[in-house]
């Protein structure tokens, strides 16, 4: 589903954000990218959702070579992904329901198909009762659930989550991780970047650890990480 081969990424002339990165992620897999801040986790994710092109090497995502895709193809690819951020990125002047519907509307979904789909995913993330609440009326954990609902509403093949628990307390963190596990259990791949090893350790999911832009550890598919680097 996703393949990186000898990928380098430089934002400035002098320093490399990613060095010789190679890995594969299969459909339905759950993968953690770990490492300290600045290790390159977010850059890997940005390359996956085509926010940045690789400087060299090849990146394949959902059958597309990311060096050759047009802006239009990128839009098409992103409709098959759901992206979740640490800062939620919800539109403040829209309700939870409207924020989720927004993702469907911008892809040109039929008007009468939007509402049932939105309610389905809001129910899935446990927020159906707060559909009409504005982001400022929701807790951090609830806002992140809305963001996950928005990522889910287009029935993506993969959810890409960049430090989704970075702004959350322990209880909300547990809830969001459990939600992502449930989503994965239903067949959607999840790629999550986190520096919080307390999330990673209790799971048996694949872990890829980055340090200074290079992969220093990859537990392999379905392996329990043996070292943490923490």
């Amino acid at each position: 589903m996703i393949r990186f081969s000898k990928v380098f990424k430089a934002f400035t002339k002098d320093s490399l954000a990613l060095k010789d990165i190679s890995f594969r992620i299969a459909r339905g897999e759950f993968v953690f990218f770990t490492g300290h801040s600045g290790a390159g986790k977010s850059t890997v994710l940005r390359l996956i959702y085509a926010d940045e092109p690789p400087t060299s090497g090849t990146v394949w995502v959902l059958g597309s070579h990311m060096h050759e895709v047009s802006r239009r193809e990128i839009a098409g690819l992103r409709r098959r992904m759901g992206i979740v951020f640490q800062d939620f990125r919800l539109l403040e002047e829209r309700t939870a329901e409207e924020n989720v519907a927004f993702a469907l509307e911008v892809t040109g979904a039929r008007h009468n198909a939007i509402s049932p789909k939105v309610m389905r995913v809001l129910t899935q993330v446990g927020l159906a009762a707060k559909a009409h609440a504005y982001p400022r009326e929701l807790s951090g954990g609830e806002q992140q659930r809305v963001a996950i609902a928005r990522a889910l509403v287009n029935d993506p093949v993969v959810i890409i989550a960049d430090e989704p628990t970075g702004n959350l307390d322990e209880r909300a963190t547990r809830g969001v991780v459990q939600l992502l596990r449930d989503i994965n259990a239903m067949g959607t791949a999840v790629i999550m970047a986190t520096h919080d090893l307390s999330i990673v350790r209790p799971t048996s999911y694949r872990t890829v650890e980055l340090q200074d832009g290079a992969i220093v550890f990859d537990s392999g598919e379905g392996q329990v990480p043996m070292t943490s680097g923490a």
Partner: protein
Amino acid sequence: MRLTVREALRSFRRAPVLSLLAVTTIGFALFVLGLFGLVALNLRATLSGLAERVEIVLYVTRGTPVEIVTIAIGDIQAFPEVDEVEYVTEDQALERARQELTEFQGVYSDLETNPLPASLEIRLKPGFRDNEHVTAVAERLQGFRFAEDVRYGGDWVEKLDRLRSIAAAVGLVIGAAFGAAAVIIIGTTIRMTVLARGREIQLMRLVGATDGFIRRPFLLEGAIKGALGGALALVLNYVAYAAVSRALFEAAFFSAGQAAAFLLFGTLLGLAASAASVNRHLPAT
């Protein structure tokens, strides 16, 4: 389409002051443009009024038989440039002089013989009242054997011609300048909206919206702002016209068709300016 309309209107609701400011600024830019249009319109009406007075006078040699003059009138009327020909007899000329030149009334009434010649007054059709055509017709008239003299105020017609071309050139230059100012203003307001909504645009991209889809609400917003600015400009122009008509002289205002064209111009201007602005700023967001 629904979303495009909703998003465009949302921008007005979300930043009412900025939107009002944009519409007002566009309105004033178009107002000045419209004001200039009104001046051009009235100037044209005045010039064409002046042009109506362009006339060629052929003085008939004394003693020419009336039959010959009558036949010539038929010939002259057949000229493609000629609108009408009026025959002024010697007696009519004297009568006119008595009426019009009141200060010489005594002189004219004491005359034993009429010193004034008969004449043909020739008026040209609209479109032929310029120097070139007037001179050409006058030259042709000089070919008549009974023509003692042909007068047409060559200097005056030439000046009128020059005035007409200057008015057209100034109109074009100033019109283009204010049109450009309106484009820049609309472009800037749209740019502010694009930048203010950078976060939303980024999010639209991340959830898979195409550039065309992102662009559409901005284009509609620009068109609406242009149309509203155009409407405001029309109202302001009408106020200016009414004030001038009441205080100074009876002026002319745009016809319904011209007013509609003005509104359409404002709308297209808004659309074009926002298209240029969005194309320039969208890739950066």
